[in-house]
């Protein structure tokens, strides 16, 4: 099981990094999503992989699984979900206003193109 989980995290990270290095906004967002999946599984596994054990103390339980990483993962999921929503909107607005989804800043910046302060 360890090998399976570790391999899955590795592949997710690989895909994420590849996509982040693309120069268009949509692949970058997908890549960030893959990376956040990878890190969620990673955090979960950091509490050690345990099967069929409760995360709360009970007199009947033979053992426990560590509840803290699960709480951490929950927080991380909420944050990365919100951030992904934000960056999708940002990429869309950028695409609609500039007509291109290139994520690079144009090399010679036109003075009149700069934002209003």
């Amino acid at each position: 099981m360890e090998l399976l989980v570790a391999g899955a995290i590795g592949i997710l990270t690989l895909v994420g990094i590849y996509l982040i290095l693309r120069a268009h906004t949509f692949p970058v967002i997908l890549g960030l999503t893959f990376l956040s999946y990878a890190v969620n599984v990673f955090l979960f596994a950091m509490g050690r992989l345990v099967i069929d054990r409760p995360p709360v103390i009970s007199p009947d339980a033979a053992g426990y699984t560590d509840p803290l990483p699960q709480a951490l993962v929950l927080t991380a999921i909420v944050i990365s979900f919100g951030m992904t929503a934000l960056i999708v909107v940002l990429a869309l607005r950028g695409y609609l206003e500039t007509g291109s989804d290139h994520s690079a800043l144009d090399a010679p910046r036109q003075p009149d193109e700069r934002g209003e302060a």
Partner: protein
Amino acid sequence: MTAPLDHLLILPVILPAMAAAFLVLLLRHHLRRQRIVSIIVTVLLVGLAALLFAQASDGTVRAYRLGDWPAPFSIILVLDRLSATLLLLTSLLALCVVVYAAGGVDGRGRHFHPLFQFQLMGINGAFLTGDVFNLFVFFEVMLIASYGLMLHGGGAARLKAGFQYVAINLLASVVFLVGVGLIYAVTGTLNMADLAVKVPQVAAGDAALLKAGALLLFLVFATKAALVPLHWWLPATYAGTSAPAAALFMIMTKVGAYAIIRVYGLVFGAGAGPLELAAAPFVLPAALVTLAVGAIGLVGSRTLRDLSAFAVIASMGTLLVAIGLFDAAGFSAGLYYLVHSTFAGAALFLIAGLVQELRGAARDRLVPAPAMPGETLVGGLFFLAAIALVGLPPLSGFLGKVMILKAAQASVIWPWIWAVILAASLVMTFGFARAGSVLFWASGPASGTKPLPALPLVAVAALLALTLAWTLAAGPASDALGLTARQALDRSAYIGAVLGPDARLAAGD
């Protein structure tokens, strides 16, 4: 946890959070009232930070356990001299920035003031938390608000720079979580005091894994602090956003520096066994390159805002040279410079905003143009800010640099440090002189009489007055910061305050 004054400790987090919710829920369509509430709340924050600073000045480390759960299981806030100093700095900076924004910039988009207050909540929380995971949470609160502030006012260029800024920070958050996960997997705790106890006891086989986690965290803090080669998000972001947002972001780079002091001074500091000073070999060389890159970029800038952004990079380089020494003298000199560079850098960004408003079609580009209204006054303010940032006498930048040069003598590579700092100062002097003479001297007849905006000028003058006060108070300030630095390096006091005196004994300190 009985005396009512102890509860003051959580107010720097709660007060802006409540204020932001109030602003967004009840006053969302009333810009004028938003301004009044936001300024009042920020003034209250200054008072609060001053009270906490006075509390912390007695030298004890105070821990605040939320819900009174015993450490290390509780969410914990810790106040010591270092956090109190930075809280006070944040609130003073915020007050100047909010006054500037009330001069009109906050009306160019929606929700400036709620975002501003949320950002203060995140920054204050990051300075107070005693837990690595909550450091992550407060970083995120600070960042979410900063995304909104960065994009405030809109415009195509700002959106593009904003996308990069958000993407970089999301990536940094992922790395942060991996680092936190590794540290938790090895030690089983994320409480900083508990980590400081457990890190030296870690099994030899796990030390490499823990070191990987520690260095991943360092990458994140270095990104926040704009340490080369992780600095390239900064110029586009700071130059792309509005002047008050950029001025407030001055404190965000300092949050990165603070996290480096806290985590690598306390948890992975001297006495951490196999992980002693895990980040130290990287900080000093990277900081020297940062300073050089900042100075060179400053000379090559084509607008005043780009120039200000590179001045920030150079000042972060200088600051991290001092922090990279990882001793009390270095921290103390670094903290003096940190306060100075926050005020002076913020003043420069606000001046760049003023220049851009007043100069008509040329905006803040470094090209000759008709004279702007109030040229003498704005030029004078620019002159002061430039002197402060370059580090020429008589302002605090000079004193800060002298302290850093003196502290650097303890390092084996001190000739390099001296050479880079002094050469960078010379290059920066040239860059600022060139920018100033183009902006304020090589100008034709005045193009009209636009009235000078009052509130923004007051804000800039206040920031420069704070720089001046910091210069005059250099003696007592550096004594106090010496104590602050020693306290930041004193593991046993911190552990004792958070976990109780027993843990202090167990740690063998």
